[in-house]
């Protein structure tokens, strides 16, 4: 029996309707009774979700836009809290940042590595120890002391991935980030991710590219209408999903 590292037990997550609030006090007060009522209305994304992910698993999440794939990841990362139910995450979890998004443009590559590394959970000493490795992996030796606003988007992606790749994660959450950078670097990222799998790192993977999911993942979950439509071996879930997509496009 494999160890469970992430477990969701009857988890429900909904968002409040913030439109009136986010457009400010002015609009909130001008639309007063309606705005308050509107804000109380909840919008359910995930309803009564129960499943587990085991240690060392490569786990895929698929489904149409807006079914809550990213919400599910954010719940695993602890960035969002569920309304109801229990989530248990037993190991150190890292979310792969939208590559380079956490960087500050005016800081140099090196300064951003320290900032990002510490934000993601390393101490400064640990980051400094790995600095050379991180820079080498990103292939940015000649640019590392330049402000990152001078970097191309591919360079940013390389740097961002390289920081996360050196965190020694126990659980890695990947949200649609492998589609950046040049093909060669994508291959390098994939190789690194497969290395993580060899080492027994648990990986949770969200992608629109179902082919990637069926090739890479051991198991997958298909989210539909706020619920789990199917869970099981990745290729089975993916083919069920593809059949569903075909049927629904026929019926239109």
């Amino acid at each position, binding site marked *: 029996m494999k160890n469970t590292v992430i477990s969701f037990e009857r988890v429900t997550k909904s968002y409040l309707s913030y439109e009136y609030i986010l457009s*400010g*006090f002015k609009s909130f007060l001008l639309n007063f009774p309606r705005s308050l009522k509107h804000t109380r209305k909840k919008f359910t994304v995930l309803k009564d979700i129960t499943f587990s992910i085991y240690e060392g698993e490569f786990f895929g999440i698929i489904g149409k836009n807006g079914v809550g794939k990213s919400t599910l990841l954010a719940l695993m990362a*602890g*960035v*969002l809290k569920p309304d109801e139910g229990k989530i248990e995450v037993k190991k150190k979890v890292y979310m792969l*940042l939208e590559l380079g998004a*956490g960087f500050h443009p005016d800081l140099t590559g090196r*300064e951003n590595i320290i*900032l990002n590394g510490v*934000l993601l959970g390393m101490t400064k000493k640990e980051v400094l120890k790995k600095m050379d490795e991180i820079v080498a992996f990103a292939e940015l030796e000649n640019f590392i002391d330049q402000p990152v606003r001078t970097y191309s988007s591919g360079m940013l992606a390389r740097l961002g991935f390289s920081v996360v790749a050196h965190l020694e994660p126990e659980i890695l959450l990947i949200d649609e980030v492998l589609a950046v950078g040049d093909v060669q670097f994508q291959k390098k990222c994939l190789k690194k991710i497969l290395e993580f799998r060899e080492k027994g790192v648990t990986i949770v993977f969200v992608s629109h590219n179902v082919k990637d999911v069926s090739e890479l993942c051991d198991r997958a979950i298909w989210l539909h209408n706020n619920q789990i439509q199917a869970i099981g071996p990745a290729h089975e879930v993916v083919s069920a999903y593809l059949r569903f997509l075909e049927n629904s496009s026929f019926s239109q």
Partner: protein
Amino acid sequence: MTALRYYIDLIEVLTLKEIKVRYKNNIFGYFWSILHPLSLALVFYFAFKFIMKFQIENFAYFLICGLFPWQWFSNSVLAGSTSLLANATLIKKVNFPKFFIPLATVLNDAFHFLASLPVILFFGFLFNKFHFLVLFSFLPLQLLAQFIITYGLVLFLAPINLFFRDLERLIQIGLTILFYLTPIIYDVSFIPPNLKVFFYLNPLFGLIENWRLIFIEGSFNWFYFELSLLEGILIFFFGFKVFKKLSPRFAEVL
């Protein structure tokens, strides 16, 4: 132990980020940021000395001693209340204590205030008002009181500004009002005695007055200190509660 080490590192890198971004790694950044309070002092000096004919001794130095601490407060409140918005990607992607984000902005301005102390001392030297011993004995207390007031207010404003995005404008108006309600460009003795008790409600009242007593008179008013510290602690606890209550929802609205 490692957790503590980690939190110290986190505060350090976040604060250093703010400082580096402000100074853009160059010495002119420093001059730009002392230029602002100094030019304000110059404007008020002309307006009140030559036009309104205020009778305050060493008025230029008097202004500087109030304006520099005020800058720390007002810059922190403005930058701090938008700090969560400015760090949206981090909040959405990384699970770490969010308290550190506004903390870094307040510490950035605190650092800047400390870095501008030599400028105040230089003017003290020019006006022959140099109270080294008093300054260094009461500096930590004043820093503590101002930090608690400022951070407390920022903890309260930052999450609300995340939900109601137009709060920022109200904060700017509020800061202008507070500026004139605090004895920065006028002396405490100008306040009508029957209104003075209302001025006590302003935590900056005792704080700024004490900065000036330290820099100009070489004295310290314990009553003012206790008053501003107590009000600061109240604000801090209130701000902390609001922040804590709303922080699980931050990632949802960004």
